């Protein structure tokens, strides 16, 4: 293995890393927002919306992300919905897929909050949405955060699937280096190490939060 290959192609790796980080951050933001929304709807006891949310969950947890991404990107083109960028399609697919898992994490947290909290808020005159934001959600933190960050880890790694629709991220750049100079072993190790560098701090964070949750 020739490690100098990595250094001489560092710009490719850095641009790939940047693209991966960008997609990850965007998808974490939109996926969390969607998950929160879906969880709120699922626990709202508005029957039609709750059913709709459930249908969404089943579809997007029951099919591979790979298929969803391909469907969104190439399906949109086939349906004549031009204008969706590679980044947009990747973000949309990741949001929908991860949002389904994140929704279930939030739902578990919301349902762990005793019903009396809703009742006390209601008699005090707090509107439902206000109760959700100021009373219920803050109490879910200890339950939700560790699995949520765990889900983010899986999301970050899932961004690599965007390769199939041509998003030029870390894996794609690693392959570009291989195309140039060969030596797939070295290049893939470099790619893996870079993923690890992003994920490991989050992993440590989860462990710290779990320790805190136990002692709290």
């Amino acid at each position, binding site marked *: 293995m020739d490690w100098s290959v990595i250094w001489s192609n560092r710009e490719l790796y850095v641009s790939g890393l940047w693209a991966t980080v960008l997609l990850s951050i965007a998808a974490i933001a939109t996926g969390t927002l969607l998950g929160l929304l879906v969880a709120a709807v699922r626990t709202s006891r508005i029957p039609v919306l709750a059913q709709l949310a459930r249908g969404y969950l089943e579809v997007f947890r029951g099919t591979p992300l790979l298929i969803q991404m391909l469907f969104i990107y190439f399906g949109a083109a086939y349906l004549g919905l031009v204008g969706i960028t590679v980044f947009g399609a990747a973000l949309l697919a990741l949001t929908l897929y991860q949002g389904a898992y994140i929704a279930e994490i939030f739902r578990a947290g919301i349902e762990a909050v005793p019903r*009396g909290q809703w*009742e006390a808020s209601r*008699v005090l*005159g707090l509107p439902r949405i206000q109760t959700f934001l*100021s009373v219920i959600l803050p109490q879910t933190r200890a339950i939700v955060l560790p699995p949520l960050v765990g889900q983010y880890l899986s999301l970050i790694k899932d961004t690599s699937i965007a390769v199939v629709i041509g998003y030029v991220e870390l894996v794609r750049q690693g392959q570009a280096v291989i195309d140039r100079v060969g030596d797939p072993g070295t290049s893939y190790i470099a790619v893996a190490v870079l993923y690890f560098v992003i994920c490991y701090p989050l992993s440590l964070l989860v462990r710290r939060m779990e320790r805190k949750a136990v002692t709290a």
Partner: protein
Amino acid sequence: MMITDPAAQQKAVTTSRISLSGVHKRFGELEVLKGVDIDVEPGEVVVLIGASGSGKSTLLRIMCDLERADSGAVWVGGVPLHDRKRAPEIFGHVGMVFQQFNLFPHKTALGNVTLALLKVRKLSRAEAEERGRAALKRVGLADKADAYPAQLSGGQQQRVAIARALAMDPAIMFFDEPTSALDPELVGEVTGVMRSLAEDGMTMVVVTHEMRFAKDTADRVVFMDGGVVLEQGPPEQVFGSPAEQRTQQFLHRVLDT
């Protein structure tokens, strides 16, 4: 504690009167209330007693719209709670104290007391905190404003819960077994606060197993049995010479243990 609240005055809650007639409620197969009529006058302290399952807690929860009656008329503070559209007018204008306190664990005592003042009454933080501190002082916890519920004893937590309700300047206070979750030695500090509220003329409806409180504080004791009001009257009458055999049996059981 008289705190004027312009927002409260504009609302439909203009009286402390309660009037229920023909109230039925069933949970699935179980008929919990089988036609209850009950009136509470402004300033009156009414204590509901009865065995568990007699429907007294359900009745109380209907009075603050945490449960909805299947049929019958429910007027509370001038609001028809049987009218789905108008029922929410009651929220923020009556106080409810729960058996399990239901304090917000992520907020300090003061944070608990001021939340609705800030978000519902839309008071400024300074105004809300002033009122919040006054309410905490009212229940003898002025020095615990910055404590979190987990740092307080059960009796203190329940007093914060009372302060939280009082801060909203409620027309009526409801208590659902407020001392049942407390260690016996902590019951007195909560009933003490309730007694002083009664002395100040607060309209109160209380579900409790504290017969001493019922005896010395209630204007009227209502004995419920099997989903109906079986007997009611001044405490001397209900405790002294109960007319119904079921009442006698119940009192015999709870007073001897």
